[in-house]
């Protein structure tokens, strides 16, 4: 195993999402890959991760993922620090559409083994997202 070979699946994942191609991104993610999207409390497998990105692209059809920094550790985990940016065009995570623009700082950890991504973990601050979507209260995210 080399770091460069372990970096390749993550490169495919993010380059596909740059084209909003969820099928392409998940072509390197087997169904049993672990998915942990921390702010959403999602702890599951690839279908849950795939749904998150499908929902995101549906709600933000112009979404872009600007990767600021990326490195791959000797454990095969590629760490990508990025900004997810786009304009809301549909309801998202229970928040009604007000056509707001978002820029949310995120970190994603993709662990690769034998050319496949075996786990996906995402971190960001949901308050940062809510502020940009004009949500006022955490217990009433649907009420603007």
């Amino acid at each position, binding site marked *: 195993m080399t770091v460069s070979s372990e970096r390749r699946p993550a490169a495919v994942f993010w380059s596909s999402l740059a084209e909003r191609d969820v099928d392409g991104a998940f072509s390197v993610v087997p169904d049993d890959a672990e998915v942990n999207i*921390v702010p959403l409390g999602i702890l599951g497998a690839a279908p849950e991760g795939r749904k998150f990105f499908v929902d995101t692209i549906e709600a933000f059809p112009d979404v872009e993922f600007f990767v600021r920094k990326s*490195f791959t*550790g000797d454990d095969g*985990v590629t*760490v990508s620090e990025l900004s997810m940016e786009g304009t809301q065009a549909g309801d998202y995570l229970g928040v009604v559409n007000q056509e707001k623009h978002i820029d949310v700082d995120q970190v994603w950890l993709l662990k690769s083994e034998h050319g496949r991504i075996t786990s996906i973990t995402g971190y960001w601050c949901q*308050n940062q997202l809510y502020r940009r979507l004009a949500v006022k209260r*955490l217990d009433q995210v649907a009420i603007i």
Partner: protein
Amino acid sequence: MTLAGSERTSTRTAQVTTAFFDAYRRQDVEGMVELCADNATFEYIPFEMWGRQRVMRGAGKVGAIGKAMWIGQLEAFPDLTNTVRSITADEDGNVAAQVVLAGTQASAWGTIASRGQTFSEPNLFLLEVNDEGQITSITAYWDCASVARQLGHFEVD
């Protein structure tokens, strides 16, 4: 660079990271600062305060804003502790540490008044470590909404 050299470097980087979170767990702020280079940068990404004119961010130098934020956090959560879940390090000194922070609120923390509630929240720390084994950059991500809910605060400030 040889593989052995690479392993030594990433291992040393991971050791510095472990020492940092050990000091954090001991609530030894001076020890945390001493592990950092003089001009080490600090950024707590979720920390935003939206004013009328501008957004204040939790960014600056470890010796200034970082130290002040750690002291303030420990005053608000006197039993603050952490559990390191994983450390990813490369041979260039880059680190990602998944760390759970937990504590019980004893006084106001930012805009969140104390209700005596406890929180436990996964954090992601990105560190950079130089050739001298000093931390030159600390960036952290966590979900403020989750922490606020656990502390009984529901306004999106």
